């Protein structure tokens, strides 16, 4: 049975945004822009979706309030509330992104310029944090592969590396060396080119707030949340597996792949279950966060207990 906080306990502020959201959907529908994408809905992994429904567990959208007040963004502090508290003035404007490495159109791009040739799509994804909590987030973003195709990497590009802004003036969490700043992440080229992989610019039809990694961030829904690097200032096309921040920090705990895997526990806690933010009772975590149908083939033949 699914136990929720009684509806009388949910402050109206948590409900409103969904109403706003639905209104905006109608609004967008009237405009005709992106209506098809929204109607086509949601690449929630269909199998896992069915499985969770058969358990009586749904994948309802997490309220905007929770998505914007419970964040791991150590650039603004290590507590979950710190980013909401300290990233208020961080908007990501103006913003440029440095594209380099094995790529034809290497350059420093003004972000709005770079994005002007793409139309953001609507994607509702589960987000599974390595700390065993999860959310369901309606993102707006551009499939990373569209951007990669536009940038034309050469055949030597085997991996894509990403880097977060390093600016202790704005990002007060970076004044302490709790992590090896700047935050870096990376994907194998086939992971980066996978249609599920998104460069997100918005949540609930609003531009990303400071705490969610504006103005542009990665979303890789079958991997633990720390792979989804925020506030990206550099995209590098490289030949070798790039270093990644949490792997540098604790290699026994965080691997390069970081695929959601209920069978490979974190040394300090089980990954077999997760708690959906807003719910009390833990639920089982599906393999690849429920996106196995779409992504399992990327890893066929790999020992996932070794490449965690």
């Amino acid at each position: 049975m699914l136990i929720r906080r009684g509806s009388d306990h949910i402050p109206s502020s948590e409900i409103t945004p969904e109403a706003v959201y639905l209104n905006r959907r109608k609004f967008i529908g009237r405009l005709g822009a992106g209506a098809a994408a929204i109607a086509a809905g949601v690449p929630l992994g269909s199998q896992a979706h069915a499985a969770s429904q058969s358990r009586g567990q749904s994948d309802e959208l997490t309220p905007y309030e929770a998505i914007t007040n419970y964040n791991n963004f150590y650039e603004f502090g290590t507590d979950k509330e710190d980013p909401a508290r300290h990233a208020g003035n961080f908007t990501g404007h103006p913003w440029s992104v440095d594209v380099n490495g094995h790529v034809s159109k290497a350059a420093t791009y003004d972000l709005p310029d770079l994005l002007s040739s793409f139309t953001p799509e609507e994607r509702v994804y589960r987000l599974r944090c390595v700390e065993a909590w999860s959310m369901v987030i309606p993102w707006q973003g551009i499939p990373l592969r569209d951007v990669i195709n536009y940038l034309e990497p050469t055949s030597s590009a085997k991996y894509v590396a990403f880097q977060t802004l390093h600016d202790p003036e704005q990002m007060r969490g970076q004044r302490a060396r709790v992590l090896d700043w700047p935050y870096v992440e990376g994907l194998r080229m086939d992971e980066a080119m996978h249609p599920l992989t998104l460069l997100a610019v918005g949540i609930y039809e609003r531009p990303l707030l400071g705490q969610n990694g504006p103005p542009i961030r990665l979303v890789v829904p079958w991997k633990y949340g720390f792979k989804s690097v925020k506030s990206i200032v550099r995209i590098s096309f490289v030949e070798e597996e790039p270093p990644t921040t949490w792997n540098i920090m604790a290699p026994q705990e965080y691997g390069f792949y970081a695929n959601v895997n209920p069978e490979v526990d974190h040394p300090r806690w089980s990954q077999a279950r997760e708690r959906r933010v807003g719910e009390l009772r833990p639920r089982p975590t599906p393999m690849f966060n429920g996106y196995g149908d779409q992504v399992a083939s990327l890893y066929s033949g790999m020992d996932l207990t070794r490449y965690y």
Partner: protein
Amino acid sequence: MAGVLALVPLANIGWDAATGGLGVEPVEALVRRTGWWALTLLVVTLAVTPVRRVTGWNRLIQIRRPVGVISFVYALSHFVIYVAIKQWFALSFIIEDILERPFITAGFITLCLLTPLAATSTRKSIRRLGGKKWRRLHWLIYPAALLGVLHYFWLVKADTRPPLVYAAIVIALLMMRLDLPAPFARKAARSDSAEPAPSRS
């Protein structure tokens, strides 16, 4: 006095629970708040005697036992919230945690060490055991505090500064009790026996 102290964390947690200050993940917040208060009050308990010696404020001794008991109450709530809500009574997960995850193992042993101390914290137990035995038993508070700090140190993901602060305080308090000049130590030991004997005020 101690009653008022007991209410501070409760009021803090209760106020936040009522005003939404526990955030969108209240379970996590409750686990962390109760753990933090358990350890903090344990450290306060340890600090009583050294502070009393330095300041000569002898009445301070009266809060030592009650604060220790309150620390245990928080440690126990911490464990109960972990078992009931975080793990949803899933015994296999709980046992796996206690056996295989060092930070949980340390927390569990800490709780086990604190339990007999809390159980013998009444004046009746002190009388029954006798001051010497009672004091020997209650020496367990030192390993308990050290293990509590280890639990904290092992559970943080990146920022180890707060648990290191606790470690420094606990070690300093320990040294203060071990490294006293001999006559002072003897005098202190004697005056410590004021604690097990029911205090008059």
